[in-house]
């Protein structure tokens, strides 16, 4: 049953990756990356258990944290971009 769950996570990761490639706006990429990160946490937690890796949970916890911090860092990136809107015309419609 773990295997099934892992496969499901892998499929979702692939879907998220496709979204990250396609864009079209940077917000989509951010979302996809965030979702991808969460899935990685789950993957390590489940996969680590299945393959009995050593201290995989530490890594998973770290990932969960890094993912959150990374997402916030990305969001902070937007703030300035909006003010000098000339260059980052990507998202503003």
């Amino acid at each position, binding site marked *: 049953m773990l295997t099934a769950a892992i496969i499901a996570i892998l499929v979702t990761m692939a879907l998220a990756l496709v979204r990250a490639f396609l864009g079209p706006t940077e917000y989509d990429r951010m979302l996809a990356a965030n979702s*991808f990160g969460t899935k990685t946490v789950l993957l390590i937690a489940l996969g680590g258990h299945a393959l009995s890796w050593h201290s995989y949970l530490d890594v998973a916890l770290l990932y969960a944290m890094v993912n959150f911090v990374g997402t916030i860092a990305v969001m902070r990136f937007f703030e300035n971009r909006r003010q000098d809107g000339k*260059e980052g015309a990507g998202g503003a419609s």
Partner: protein
Amino acid sequence: MLIAIAAIRMRDLFGVVILFGVYSLLTAVLFMDLDAVDVAFTEAAVGAGVTTVLLLSSLRLTRRWEAPPRHNPFFSLLVVGVTGAALVYATLDAPLLGDPSAPVHKHVAPHYLQEAAGEVGMPNIVTAVLASYRGYDTFGETLVVFTAGLAVLLLLGFSENGKSRIETSAIHDQVALKVVVKLLIPLILLYALYVQFHGDFGAGGGFQAGVIFATGFILYDMVFGVENARAVMAVAWLPRLAALGVLIYGGVGVYSMLSGKPFLDYSALSADPVQGQHLGVLLVELGVGITVFSIVLSIFYALSGRRRQS
């Protein structure tokens, strides 16, 4: 692989950075699979975390879109092709993956695996080798970090008043975010301490702990604004703190030298050699942790405190 190709093709640097972070995550998973827990841990904290944050911070200061390529890529492709061919050529005689008869597993490593637990007295052999057998390399590594911090400070310096940053951000004044972050930060710092002192038994150690600790502060800075963060941790003290970390590490070495043992011989620290090793590794990891924490944080401040100039 796909990510790498996509990262090359994409001209939106922002996308490149995000994909690079994702790529780091995948690399770390691969490291886990190849039994390199410590490396995966570090790669996750550094590659996916710190590097992404730093790249984004500096992207904020520079331009986001890349100009279309103008060069004929033929020459580069040729160089790359030759190098690649050399690499493939090299792998033809290389031992297979996981082959137990490969020279790497025959010569030096078995000694570590058999003796480290007895000589250094800690189950995590990576930490034992890192901090004791090749402790001097790690001292060098700490100095590399220290040098990098110095270099960044020389180049950028801290902006003198934190007010220079315009505080109308997309995540400014988000109440839910602030509350959650406020709750999380103590947890993160606690976790960093756990990683710092658990390095003897599992994945972790001074470097990773320093990064995580700094991440906590970076998070605080990003959500609550630069003035508040700097009130907690005065900027001027960061380089000194880093120097202190290096001095702790070096001091352990000098102490062992003064007591008649070679540089960084931790057995000089206590009457019982194994006890001394333990104490030495602990102190050394502490030094690494302090240095890394203060350098990572000061690099972040230096990059993020700067105002964009056009």
